[in-house]
């Protein structure tokens, strides 16, 4: 959900969560009223601010929210371990939330929303306050959840983030949907093509350009593709992290929590998909997939597409 401030994004999310009631109309979530308590066991919510108890440690915070889902002690312990690993705060498990930076608190906020392995994840400005590395991890996580068949609804001002991960977009203004559709439907520019080529010999490139000039009747636009800044930033930080052992901030993520990771079949499907706008930096912690399996799945996907 996109929209300027006051367009109704957060209000809509809060209605989905049963915190606000519609003044008219009917709203169902997972086939039930949003105020139906058992349905809430299938929902995870990350609010726009981290509304956590400042005096609890990160471990106690996750334990508290896991208890609200009636998880038994062993299961709680296991999930908390995996989540702390995933958000890179395992070393800060005994630190109070009040001592955390905004980004670290956001990570705890995100982890609490996933403690129940939800079917529907509602994210209100999920990357707000996170550094680019954290943003990338959140986006990877969203893609992983989607690969497991989970529904992720998010509202954001950061259009690049939305473009990276969303299948469908609604643009709201004054409480009304102004545009709704898939990224392809909404963003495709008809009547224009973009061709990306590997590096060509100068003579071959001149031949291609001459041909295009002849076809178009004017000079074609040619430049070198650029890495995006996010990708570059992540590479620099990863390099620095390899060289520095200790940090009081967020540690390296050990990948998506095991219980949240997609099954092997889902992963193969995901890997076989055409390369997206940005490659995943942190591979999900999933069952081993051999290079041969990956190639075979990609071939099958390609056959289907052709």
């Amino acid at each position, binding site marked *: 959900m996109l929209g300027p401030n006051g367009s109704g994004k957060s209000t809509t999310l*809060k209605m989905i*969560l*049963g*915190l*606000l*009631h519609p003044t008219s109309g009917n709203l169902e979530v997972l086939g039930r009223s949003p*105020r139906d*308590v*058992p349905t*809430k*066991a299938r*929902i995870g*919510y990350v*609010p726009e*601010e981290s*509304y*956590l*108890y400042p*005096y*609890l440690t990160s471990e106690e915070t996750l334990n*508290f*929210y896991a*208890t*609200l*889902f*009636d998880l038994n002690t062993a299961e709680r312990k296991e999930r908390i371990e995996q989540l702390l690993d995933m958000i890179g705060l395992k070393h800060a498990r005994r630190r109070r939330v009040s001592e955390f930076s905004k980004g670290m608190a956001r990570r705890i906020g995100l982890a*609490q929303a996933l403690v*129940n392995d939800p079917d529907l994840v*509602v994210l209100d400005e999920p990357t707000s306050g996170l550094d680019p590395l954290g943003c990338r991890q959140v986006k990877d996580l969203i893609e992983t959840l989607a690969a497991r068949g989970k529904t992720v609804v998010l509202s954001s001002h950061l259009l690049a983030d939305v473009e990276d991960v969303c299948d469908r977009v609604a643009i709201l203004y004054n409480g009304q949907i102004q545009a709704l559709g898939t990224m392809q439907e909404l963003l495709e520019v008809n009547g224009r093509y973009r061709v990306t080529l590997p590096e060509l010999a100068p003579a071959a490139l001149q031949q291609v350009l001459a041909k295009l000039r002849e076809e178009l009747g004017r000079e074609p636009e040619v430049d070198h593709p650029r890495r995006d800044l996010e990708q570059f930033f992540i590479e620099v930080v990863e390099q620095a992290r390899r060289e520095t052992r200790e940090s009081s901030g967020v540690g390296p993520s050990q990948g998506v929590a095991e219980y949240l990771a997609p099954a092997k079949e889902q992963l193969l499907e995901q890997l076989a998909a055409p390369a997206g706008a940005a490659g995943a930096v942190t591979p999900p912690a999933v069952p081993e997939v051999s290079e041969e399996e990956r190639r075979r799945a990609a071939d099958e996907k390609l056959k289907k597409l052709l």
Partner: protein
Amino acid sequence: MRRILAIASIALRTAVRSRVVVILLGLLLLAIVGLPATVKSDGTLAGRVQILLTYTLAAVSTILSVATVWAGCAAVATEVQEKQLHLILTKPVRRVEVWLGKWLGLLALNGGLLVVCGVAIYAGLWWHTRPGTLTAEEQRRLGEEILVARREVLPEPLDVTAPAQQILAEQQKRGAVPAGRPVEQVLAAIQDSLRQAAFTVPTGYKRMWTFKLPALPTGEQPVVLRYKLASSQIAGALVDGLWLVGPADSAERVEIRVTNAAQGVHSVTIPVAALRGSREVVVEYANINPVPLAVLFDPQDGLALLVFEGTFVGNFVRGILVVFLQLAFLAALAVSAGTLMSLPVAALVTGYVVLLIQVGEHVQRLSQERGTFMGGTQGTGGTMLDQVLRFVLWLESAVVQPLQGPSVLEYLAGGKLISWGWVGWELVIKVALYAGVLAALTTFFFNRREIALPTQ
């Protein structure tokens, strides 16, 4: 249950971290340690022990009440304001579970603090009366009068209906009943004066009362007759009287001659043998003053037999339990107010309700009187507004009356028995019934409350 306990644990931790609660707990410590050292008694040992018990327990229950109101109101109201509750309510948590969790958290806080305070007060009491500091006589008196649990038995009520009817009939025959005054009012006044007369003894006269003990006293502990006396004589004069215990025709009737100050509370000890194995005890008072004067006993609690029932420790524990249950009701009230209102408003409303409970007795009297609020004719029911106001007062007193009760402090300091029945009453009425109704009503409205409105 796991969810409720998790919320309770958070409520407890939040309350302990609240600055207001921390300040109040500091005062609590000061009250327990500082008060006994600074307050002066009347110089007697009994007075010192009574002051120690009354002041420290009063300070503890007052401070805990204020802390409970504040922490109870803040428990939900602050979480709505700071939005932690938004997150909790997106989890599979029923709103009644939130209410119960917050309430149980406060109960845990109050329970823990009461145990600590109770032990501290008892230790202080032991220190002030430790062996070696008192004479044997002082020890005995303390053990019989204050550090004991004695049941208070009041005289059997007099049936004044028939004599009052007779007097009324005579007055009507003589035309002595004022015109326009309702007959019920005249009859009630006659009954009052007959009851008063039954507790007034002029010189040369005797009055008799019957007490029915719930059970025969066991052991060697004596039965004590406590009486609150006043006389028509000027203050400071002495009053001579004779107490006669046992049936009038009995040869074993015990006679006890007393000379008392004209105002005050006195007691005489009746040996268990004088009861002659009977649960019905007849007591007479003879006014044997040489000069004419009337001796008056308070009809409400001017005469009572105090029968030994148990030790002070048991009584003290039951007293602490009663205070705990009263705080449990207060916590329910505060959590309910804080669930439906923002913090300053919730605390004010809770304070107002507590005040209504305190003045409930007066409200009850107002509702029973047939006067008017708007200047209509007395006794006729008044205007419509009078009737509405009277109904509101009646409703208020009906709701509030079960919440009122005797003072635990007065009972403990007076060595009066706090029975398990009293503890049970507090549990059933204040906790199960009233707190239960509050929980149900609050949940009903809380379920309909939009928790994430932009104004919250």
